[in-house]
């Protein structure tokens, strides 16, 4: 069976190759950045196993690595890469000669992900399924990318080494932005372990008039948006706001319908996700990927949709939950 751990090793090897290419180009701090980032992929299982067995030093070393990544990220600001005229001309020429054949490998990624997602769980070799049951979509995506790479190599007649070089170009262009989602998720864990959520819920429930159900609803909705913006993730905000306001005040005290409150409350949090740089993989990474001059350019385009939807969600909840 293809385990997600196998794909981690491929990611780790790719990161190491990127580090090596940067080292050869005499960009030592960029090389160090990618080399440290390769660690959780190459040694992640060993680190977690040691931690479970009570040996903390590998995880502590990784913690020092995270601090180093923060410092190295600040030392390697993003530089927009400008392609030389020859490369632009070569791209135009190859686009004209290869034509629509270029779409095949690009569309193979989503198409194969789809096929593997539905088909993978039914394909079993020797009693084990093809894909990791813990993360079916992501292992499907990983496998689809590797197959698509093989198709792309055939279409473009490029060498695998060239493909790694091009992947490195993309990775260097994204720089620290590529791993921001990972450190943000880490911060979420730290906040949870240090009781930040409890403190915010305590403040929220201390300041709202508990007998007014609309005031409670508004506090719940705004709390979902605000806390999602701080954490960058509605999943982190949901249990906190539910435990602080949703369950004790809205469901138990005012008899709100839990299914509707939960579903639309979560989606109200998503409006906050559209508004915050903390949701880096959705808001900051694409701004870098699309070479926008303003890192908040994508967020600016989302503000109107997010605020309108927030009002709609509060209205929907006000009408639907207290039936």
């Amino acid at each position, binding site marked *: 069976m293809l385990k997600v751990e196998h794909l981690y090793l*491929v*990611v780790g090897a790719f*990161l190491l190759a990127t580090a090596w290419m940067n080292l050869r180009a005499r960009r030592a701090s960029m090389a160090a950045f990618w080399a440290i980032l390769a660690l*959780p*992929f190459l040694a992640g299982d060993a680190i*977690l196993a040691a931690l479970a067995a009570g040996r903390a030093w590998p995880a502590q*070393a*990784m*913690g020092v690595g995270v601090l180093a*990544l923060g*410092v190295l*990220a600040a030392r390697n600001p993003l530089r927009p890469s400008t392609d030389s005229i020859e490369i632009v001309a070569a*791209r*135009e020429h190859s*686009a004209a000669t*290869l034509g*629509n054949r270029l779409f095949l490998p690009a569309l193979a*990624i989503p198409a194969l*992900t789809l096929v593997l997602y539905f088909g993978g769980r039914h394909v079993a070799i020797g009693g084990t399924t093809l894909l990791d049951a813990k*993360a079916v979509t992501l292992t499907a*995506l*990983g496998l689809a990318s590797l197959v*698509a*790479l093989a198709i*792309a190599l055939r279409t473009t007649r*490029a060498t695998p080494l060239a493909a790694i070089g*091009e*992947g490195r170009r993309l990775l260097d262009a994204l720089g620290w932005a590529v791993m*921001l989602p*990972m*450190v943000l998720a*880490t*911060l979420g*864990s*730290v*906040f949870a372990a*240090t*009781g930040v959520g409890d*403190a915010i819920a305590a403040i929220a429930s201390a300041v709202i008039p508990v007998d007014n159900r609309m005031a409670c609803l508004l506090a719940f909705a705004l709390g979902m948006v605000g806390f999602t913006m701080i954490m960058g993730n509605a999943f982190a905000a*949901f249990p906190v706001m539910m435990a602080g306001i949703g369950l004790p005040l809205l*469901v138990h005290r005012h008899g709100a319908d*839990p299914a*509707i409150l*939960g*579903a*639309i409350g*979560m989606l109200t949090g998503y409006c906050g996700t*559209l508004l915050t740089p903390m949701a880096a993989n959705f808001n*900051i990474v*694409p*701004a870098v*990927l*699309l070479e926008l001059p303003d890192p908040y350019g*994508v967020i600016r385009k*989302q503000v109107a*949709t997010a605020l*309108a939807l927030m009002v*709609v*969600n509060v209205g929907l909840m006000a009408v*639907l939950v207290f039936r």
Partner: protein
Amino acid sequence: MADPISYWPLLGVGVVVAGFAMRRNPVLVVVTAGVVSGLASGKPVPELLALLGGAFVENRLLLLLLLTFPVIGLLERHGLRERARAWIGGFRGLTLARFLTTYLGLRQLLGMVGLTQVAGHVQTVRPLVAPMSEAAAARSLAPKGDDEVAPPQLRDDEKHDVRAMAAATDNVGLFFGEDVFIAFGAVLLIQGFYARNGIELEPLSIALWALPTAIFAFAIHATRLWLMQRRMRRARAATEVKRAEG
């Protein structure tokens, strides 16, 4: 409650807000916030380091997306984005609003059946949707009824606007489609939370209540796409009148 609540860890939230407001490097801000929050809660340094390292490793699933980089990079080097632009530019009557609205609807429907990883900023927006949007925008700005004339070139600010909107459309489509899928994490998270608190709910009863918001999200964002296109056309017309007068 047994323990009185400590408010000191909130300092970490303050670091995040201040750091982003001062536009410091986001990775450094986030790492600093974690350290501040941990120290403020009274965690000893070795324990804090193990917490940071362990949590970092546990979240590595988020970077599995890197596996798409070599193939996307290779295809881009061989002109994928140029080809995408040329292909969409060939469709007469395809406007920016129509193209992105179709993508929005498609993204929502895919999310509703659980196929969230099929599209995304690396997989589809950068290599396909953004250049296609630029081509569709150029066509939208072409004089009406005159298909023989080549569409105008977009200015840089117009290009950036269109690209940012393409990414925003992907986000809106993803967020307000996936929640309708019963096996999606959010639905299971909601169900799990209630189950731990003694309220048993069927995942389907939660997922269905995400539908009204999904429909509103489509209507609101599609309207905004149409407004954006109209604004771009008017801005063009205004500059052309100015040029004709000057």
